[in-house]
């Protein structure tokens, strides 16, 4: 194998391909990145049985061929090279990387032991790149990071025709984002449970592209996989197995009190007051006509309070939240105003976005948050 490739093109491609590789893979070859040179392109692949990534970039190929080298090492090297064309050449047992006056010789790993990547899927439909990135970020924050119920570490993606919904919960809060996508067939219908961390990484890495293709079900080459495609980048992820709990009952069916607040003002105030909340325990919110009083700390501990303007409809209410959970939600709505709906201080509250202070609610994203109780 022998080829030349632009430094930036190589660096970006390797970095993207190896981003999901485990630092301690179960088998050593899985730490590798597979380089395949053919005609006028170089394809880089990485796979660790959970996640696969494949990217093809233009290259001037003198001799086609393939080689497997340490992925992270090649990534670090290519990022540190000067901005000059890079040549890659297999020389005996080594891959030589030359750029300007720098030369690196990397040990080749045995390609015979390298697993076959999942077949690159044909998309079931596509979604706008920036919309997808935002939607995944909004939902993934609510996914469980613990290990008590593995399926809760996933984001549940449901597709019904041109409706795509993403949902995650860690039992303390639940995030649901609904959006419109372009299915390949009008009757598309899928449910997939995608590991939240992988989905976040993928969405961030692919979101810069105009559109992202998503492959599910048979299109992904098997029921246990989801595939993503943007430009000349493709990736697959193994799905989580199991039944996701039924969460529909968690959304309150009625609303008694609604408060509309400026998102940035509320966020800043909660951050300040939370400084005295012992171990992030709770901030208390007292909603009354025209304002909400935000307080934390009690008894002998440090205390803080602040008032923020708010438009209140319905009865006054006092409720407490874990400040981090509240801030996660406020950071996710992505609108100038935040709309909070309540029933009782012991029941879940719903946070959603709103573009104008007196406009309509944007229900495409809902963040349901369980309040904190205090001993009486």
């Amino acid at each position: 194998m022998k080829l030349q490739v632009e430094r930036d093109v190589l660096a970006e491609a390797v970095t993207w391909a190896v981003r999901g590789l485990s630092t301690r893979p179960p088998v050593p070859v899985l730490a590798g990145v597979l380089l395949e040179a053919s005609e006028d392109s170089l394809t880089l692949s990485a796979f660790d049985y959970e996640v696969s990534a494949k990217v093809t970039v233009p290259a001037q190929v003198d001799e086609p061929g393939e080689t497997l080298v340490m992925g992270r090492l090649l990534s670090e090297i290519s990022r540190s090279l000067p901005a000059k064309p890079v040549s890659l050449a297999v020389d005996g047992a080594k891959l030589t990387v030359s750029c300007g006056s720098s030369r690196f010789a990397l040990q080749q790993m045995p390609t015979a032991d390298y697993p076959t990547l999942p077949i690159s899927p044909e998309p079931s439909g596509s979604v706008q790149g920036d919309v997808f990135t935002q939607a995944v970020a909004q939902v993934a924050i609510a996914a469980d990071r613990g290990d008590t119920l593995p399926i809760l570490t996933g984001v549940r993606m449901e597709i019904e025709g041109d409706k795509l919904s993403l949902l995650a919960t860690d039992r303390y809060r639940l995030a649901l984002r609904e959006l419109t996508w372009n299915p390949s067939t009008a009757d598309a219908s899928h449910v997939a449970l995608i590991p939240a961390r992988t989905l976040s990484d993928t969405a961030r890495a692919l979101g810069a592209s105009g559109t992202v293709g998503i492959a599910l079900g048979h299109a992904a080459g098997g029921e246990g996989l989801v595939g993503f495609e943007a430009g000349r980048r493709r990736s697959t992820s193994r799905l989580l197995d199991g039944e996701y709990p039924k969460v529909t009952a968690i959304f309150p069916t009625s609303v008694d009190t609604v408060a509309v607040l400026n998102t940035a003002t509320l966020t800043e105030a909660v951050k300040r007051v939370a400084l005295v909340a012992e171990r992030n325990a709770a901030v208390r919110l007292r909603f009354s006509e025209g304002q909400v009083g935000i307080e934390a700390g009690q008894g002998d501990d440090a205390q803080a309070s602040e008032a923020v303007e708010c438009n209140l409809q319905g009865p006054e209410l006092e409720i407490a939240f874990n400040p981090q959970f509240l801030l996660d939600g406020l950071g996710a709505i992505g609108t100038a105003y935040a709309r909070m709906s309540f029933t009782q201080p012991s029941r879940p509250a719903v946070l959603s976005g709103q573009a104008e202070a007196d406009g309509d609610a944007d229900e495409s994203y809902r963040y349901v948050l369980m309040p904190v109780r205090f001993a009486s």
Partner: protein
Amino acid sequence: MRTTASILHLDLDAFFAAVEQRDKPSLQGKPVCVGGTGHRGVVSTASYEARVYGARSAMPTAQARRLCPAGTAFLSPRFGAYSRSSQAVMGLLHELSPVVQQVSVDEAYVDLAAAGIELTLEDVTARVRRLLDDIPGATGGLTASAGVASSKMLAKIASDLEKPAGLVVVPPGHELDVLGPLPVRAIGGIGPATATRLRTFGVESVADLQRMGEADLVSIFGDSHGRGIYRLARAQDDRAVETEREAKSVSAEETFEVDVTDPRVLAAELATMSTRVTSRLAEGSAFARTVTIKVRQHDFTTSTRSATLPHPTGEPEVIRATAQRLLDAVDVSDGLRLLGVGVSGFTTHAQEQFLFDDEPDGGPVEADVAPVTPAPLLRSSQGWAPGADVRHDELGAGWVWGRGLGRVTVRFEGPGTPPGPVRTFAADDPALHPADPPDWT
């Protein structure tokens, strides 16, 4: 270190075995082992007669059976009987001083500085001697040993020096003389691992240990353990006798009449106990973060497992689900004798969880399975545990002397009676009933 010998440590002698010998006159002066009697059982207490043959507590019962001669009684524990005798002794301690810290069923510390007596060696010795003399009368013949010293650590060591029925008072200023010749294991906090490590440095006795510098101990055992050993080797122990400690956990447990293997029955028990624990939490206006289950296998092996939630809760369903998840990791196929649920890590706030309609991880026992009969509590009937108290409609009170092949043999005797006769019945004889522990007074 206090300047007077004001801390009393009292330890009942071979307590479980002694209660058995009191309630079963035919066993007096004979070797008795109390504990798990099954083939995987462990000895809880061996009587002094059994200790002569090498039987010890924590020894597998099978090994004790090989060591002890024919005629040794191997009995299942009767916790009800022990608890009543223990209360009688603790009552005497409370008469002596208001500051009593009961550390187990047969062991307690007393702060004599609160006893209203002169803390001279003569007065203290006389008063504690009278206490020891009162104990057999109050308990129907049990004995205790006591140690009095200037610290809890040394009082406990002293109470062990002249067992049984011994009293050792360590005069202030003589702590190191008592401590020096003892093996290092006598110090609380030095277990087998530390002792082995110390032996590699040629340290066998506390006196050897006293010659080691603090810096050396810290470099070997780390900061806190090293400093702790250094201090304890010099009898530097300022711990107070704590009376009622603030509750740090709340728990509920059930002992089953027959060992339970059915996971559905265990799940139902967990649910009931979780509800009980939660309501006691609520009474104390508290929430909890850590859930612990306690499991005693059919052979008395007892273990606990716990899980800490990301956020505190006061919700019975969350406690139940967490306890269930812990129980799911336990092998219950041989049957459980006891199951308990406890919570700790109290807080004044709770971050509650959503409750999903259909918990996928084996949520509440499903309604469409056959109704679950509550597990029978307090073992007996089919079991007829060896040593258990029984009553026969005509022959009166006795205890299970032997069993097997559908038969049960009962010896009819009790505290204060001469050794009684033995009769054998069918295990399901309707005239035979489980009974409460006999009254020794």
